[in-house]
């Protein structure tokens, strides 16, 4: 049988349909599709895909298990390296990681590794849901008691932040037998997975299931705890926590610093997405947090955050949604799939343009002045530097502007923690063991790297958990 050249397509909601709802766009493979796609894997002995994965999931092995008919085994293989496969299968930039180096991709389309990962994880979650619904209730009392007894003797570790970095570190540490408490500033867990990435891309029930699994490992989660304010790192140590992991993310929104940016109708993507996702403003007035979005929306930036904001605005009923980006299509940092989906949904791309000024009318933004750009030499990031074309300014009508040009580490915790060394741009400095300048304090994820990816944050959480374990063994 000749090998299928293209990836097995994934069925999804049609663009016309989906811009009217917040349901997930791609449906995921069914069994037959998954097996068909799994057949495409060459099982090459060198497996470059494994090195392409930031957490080295044994990809050919899990695909083989799947092919041999054992989803359970496939799942175990993935979970040996990746605690959150249902999430990663959906949001990882596979095209620049595992699928980028897939041998199959040399001549044909690479194997759809992400989709297969999602299939395995979803199938297992579906099964677990059915089993756990019965047993969970019955076992709950006993488990609680067991937890109480065990906690007495366990050594305490605190994890700050419940994004992918924190959740992963917590899970690994709990599995190693530590009593782990997560402290989260917001009223809900998940970090960006909850407040940033929209429902139509990552259904929150999947996140809930992953969080439940982590709770099931005995991890205690305390929401509404802003560490640095509600409680400090020193107080956590005084309270008996022997090691601390900081995974507080890159929550600080960057603004353009152009005139008119504080007009009404100008949002950071974080604010816009938080209102919609965390606070469920898309269900206003059932949920009481409003979000106001007009007819003509400009989203500045072209990363995943920008695509999420643009597609959200479309779903909230905006007539025209325009992505304004200062570089060209090639440099757009978003996942390929997000850009494709955005285009299908009628998002307009005005590339090689940079906003320079916003004008208001009655206090609300009404027009945006842009300057056209061209690309010059490559800069330090390896991308060609955008240069303004003098005299090319033009004006577009807008009534909403969403700024999605990046986030930097949230400075609140470092500022309130003496002797915690940070970079000039705010990242916490760590060594190769993820240890910070403070004894017993480790850090990882966006707070260390600046805004990056879910899988890298997870990888950092894993590595830090291992280091914390070694550290505590030494400190006995």
């Amino acid at each position, binding site marked *: 049988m000749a090998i299928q050249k293209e990836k097995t397509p994934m069925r999804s909601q049609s663009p016309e349909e989906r811009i009217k709802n917040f349901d997930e766009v791609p449906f995921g493979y069914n069994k037959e599709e998954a097996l068909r796609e799994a057949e495409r894997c060459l099982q090459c002995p060198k497996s470059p895909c494994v090195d392409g994965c930031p957490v080295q999931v044994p990809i050919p092995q899990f695909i083989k298990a799947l092919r041999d008919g054992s989803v359970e085994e496939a799942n175990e293989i993935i979970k040996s390296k990746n605690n959150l496969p249902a999430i990663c299968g959906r949001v990882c930039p596979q095209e620049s990681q595992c699928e980028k180096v897939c041998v199959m991709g040399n001549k044909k389309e690479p194997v759809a590794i992400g989709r297969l990962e999602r299939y395995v994880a979803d199938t297992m979650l579906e099964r677990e849901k059915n089993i756990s619904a019965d047993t969970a209730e019955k076992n709950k009392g006993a488990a609680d008691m067991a937890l109480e007894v065990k906690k007495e003797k366990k050594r305490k570790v605190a994890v700050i932040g419940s994004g992918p970095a924190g959740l992963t570190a917590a899970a690994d540490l709990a599995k190693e037998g530590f009593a782990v408490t997560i402290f989260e500033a917001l009223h809900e867990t998940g970090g960006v997975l909850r407040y940033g990435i929209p429902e139509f891309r990552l259904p929150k029930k999947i996140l809930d299931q992953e969080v439940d699994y982590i709770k099931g490992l005995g991890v205690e989660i305390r*929401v509404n705890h*802003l560490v640095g304010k509600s409680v400090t790192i020193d107080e956590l140590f005084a309270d008996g926590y022997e090691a601390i992991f900081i995974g507080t993310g890159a929550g*600080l*929104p960057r603004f353009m610093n152009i005139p008119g940016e*504080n007009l009404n109708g100008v949002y950071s993507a974080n604010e816009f997405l938080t209102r919609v996702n965390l*606070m469920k403003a898309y269900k206003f*007035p059932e949920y009481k*947090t409003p979000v106001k979005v007009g007819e003509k929306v400009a989203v500045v930036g072209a990363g995943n955050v920008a695509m999420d904001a643009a597609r959200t605005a479309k779903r909230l009923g905006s007539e025209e949604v325009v992505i304004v980006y200062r570089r060209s299509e090639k440099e757009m940092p978003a996942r390929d799939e997000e850009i494709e989906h955005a285009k299908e949904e009628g998002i307009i791309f005005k590339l090689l343009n940079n906003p320079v000024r916003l004008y208001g009318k009655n206090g609300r933004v009404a027009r945006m002045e842009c300057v056209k750009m061209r690309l010059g030499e490559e800069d330090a990031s390896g991308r060609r530097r955008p240069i303004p074309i003098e005299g090319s300014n033009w004006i577009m009508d807008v009534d909403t502007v969403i700024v999605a040009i990046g986030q930097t580490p*949230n400075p609140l915790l470092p500022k309130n923690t003496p002797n915690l060394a940070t970079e000039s741009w705010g990242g916490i400095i760590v060594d190769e063991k993820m240890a910070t300048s403070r004894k017993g304090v480790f850090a990882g994820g966006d707070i260390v790297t600046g805004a990056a990816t879910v899988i890298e944050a997870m990888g950092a959480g894993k590595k830090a958990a291992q280091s914390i374990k070694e550290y505590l063994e030494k400190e006995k």
Partner: protein
Amino acid sequence: MFEILEKEVLAPGIKKITVKAPLIAQKTKPGNFIILRVNDEGERIPLTVADYERETGIITIIFQEVGYTTELLGSLEVGDYIKDIVGPLGHHLELEGYQRVVCLGGGSGTALLYPKVKGFYEAGAEVIAITGARTKELIILEEELAEVSNKLYITTDDGTYGHHGFVTDILKDVLETEEVDLVVAIGPVPMMKAVSEMTRPYEIKTIVSLNSLMVDGTGMCGGCRVTVGGETKFTCVDGPAFDGHQVDFDELMNRLTYYQEEEHQCRLAKEVNK
């Protein structure tokens, strides 16, 4: 979940509740605020901690029913629960090192003023408190303020109690006759603006506490941004207190109006469901 332990109506539409929140009571200082969410569907709103007791772990919140969420909060009774409270947030005020401080509160801003008046008084400053309201029955915390200040002036817009006029009338007299090294104003934006304008020629340090719209309160969304001295600041983490001479009050007023229609919609829905 945070249980409401006591509830009191201070004036029409102004209520006081106490809540058990030991962690917050432990760490709050004058000037800090909290963010709460009444229930799962609720929005997150910021409220100042009016008082706190470290020993009992109880905090006091005083609020005016100005919108959907504050009305909902006002409808809760003793024994009911508030779903989420996080805090203390924002910077607290530096209380030390002042000789004579004038504290002005307008409307329910008086409630927010109380912890600061108390703080300065306990730190050893001479405190002149000036509080105003539209009419007599809206004057709150008179006794409490009298206890923690050296002088208390009361004004009403309609002359039904105390001085007939505005808090700024009294401030003007005080500035003319006394050496003052700090003025603190909390209340409606126009009042804070007027106070700041009045103290500017005297070059007296003036602190205002801003009531920006907020979502997270952790510096993550930027919804609370204000322009101070030509720079964008986040009220929730850089404030809520700022130098009144530097604040762009007109921008703040504009930003506060952005969700008025939606607020109206929520209230209407509530009326309908009554």
